[in-house]
């Protein structure tokens, strides 16, 4: 049916579009996972970096949403689930691998670019001490506005000391943009924002696609510590556990000796210090009321 329709409209539709849809349809049939990322604000000249990094792992396609939609339909994908993502410039990543492997990859995949007006600093932006390459002139007043200490040496502007011009979360001053460019400082990260993934009929939205590796690591640590705590409690007979259990048993014994006033050379310090703790507590309670003729340590 679709093929017929395409043939009928052949005069209107460019051949490359038909080829592209056909190719994409085949690729979609061969791959279980489609990840859709937004190219909004993503510099076109950095796309090749993504292609390079994913070579052999996934197929990277930048195409019109309308063409993708047709190809997806042809490939038997439930497009209604994806429609909300098919707006604006998109990149489509096709793979048979675990979609989360790619969301982790893109979380780590960071490129840098020059600052543009209105950019917010993600980390401290520093103008380093030294030669700026600028000739002394009107630009000096820009340095002044940014509160960067300078001196002029052999007609060139030198920065006196490393100067932070934007803290994380604050706007990078517009005045600083040409200076940063001249110094070759790219303070802004480019990240590919993932909109969602489609995997065998399941839709994984971006918030679920995002993996917090730190959280996983800390959950593993927590699970391990919980396991140790339980193991110690039941004296699970492996050395690493029994070490802790023995310490606990010993402290239990000392506490018992101390509270019962069971005096032996071994327990004397513990027993007497507990008794003294109580005596001092009582003496403290009497302080200011009775002159005991003693000094209560403070």
């Amino acid at each position, binding site marked *: 049916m679709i093929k017929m329709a395409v043939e009928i409209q052949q005069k209107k539709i460019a051949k490359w579009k038909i080829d592209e849809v056909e190719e994409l349809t085949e690729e979609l049939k061969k791959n279980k996972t489609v990840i859709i990322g937004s190219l909004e604000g993503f510099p076109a000249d950095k796309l090749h970096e993504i292609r390079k990094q994913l070579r052999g792992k996934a197929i990277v396609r930048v195409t019109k949403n309308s063409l993708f939609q047709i190809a997806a339909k042809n490939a038997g994908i439930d497009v209604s689930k994806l429609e909300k993502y098919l707006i604006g410039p998109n990149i489509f990543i096709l793979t048979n691998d675990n979609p989360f492997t790619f969301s982790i990859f893109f979380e780590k995949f960071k490129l840098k670019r020059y600052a543009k007006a209105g950019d917010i600093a993600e980390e401290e932006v520093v103008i380093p001490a030294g030669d700026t390459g600028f000739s002394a002139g009107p630009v000096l007043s820009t340095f002044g506005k940014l509160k960067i200490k300078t001196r002029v040496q052999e007609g060139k502007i030198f920065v006196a000391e490393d100067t932070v011009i934007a803290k994380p979360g604050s706007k990078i001053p517009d005045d600083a943009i040409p200076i940063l460019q001249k110094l070759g400082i790219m303070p802004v990260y480019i990240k590919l924002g993932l909109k969602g993934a489609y995997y065998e009929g399941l839709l994984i939205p971006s918030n679920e696609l995002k993996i917090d590796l730190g959280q996983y690591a800390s959950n593993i640590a927590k*699970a391990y510590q919980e396991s140790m705590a*339980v193991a110690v409690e039941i004296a699970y007979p*492996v050395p690493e556990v029994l070490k802790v259990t023995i310490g606990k048993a010993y402290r239990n014994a000392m506490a018992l000796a101390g509270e019962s006033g069971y005096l032996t050379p071994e327990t004397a310090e513990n027993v007497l210090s507990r008794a003294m703790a109580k005596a001092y507590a009582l003496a403290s309670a009497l302080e200011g009321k009775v002159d005991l003729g003693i000094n209560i340590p403070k």
Partner: protein
Amino acid sequence: MEYIYASLLLHSAKKEISEDNLKAVLNAAGIQVDDVRVKAVAAALKEINIEEVLKNASAMQVAAVAAPA
């Protein structure tokens, strides 16, 4: 620690830490199960309040993590 991990898996799934359940989990992980050990762990865990122990362990952990080394 496999037996402990298996026990806590069952605990967090709100399943009984019985010998049979432990064996099923350990087998699924491809572990050659030692009957006596399963018995011992199941019996020992019956005597403690796991929830309590986990609460203490977690209090400990938060503090430790928060400690500025």
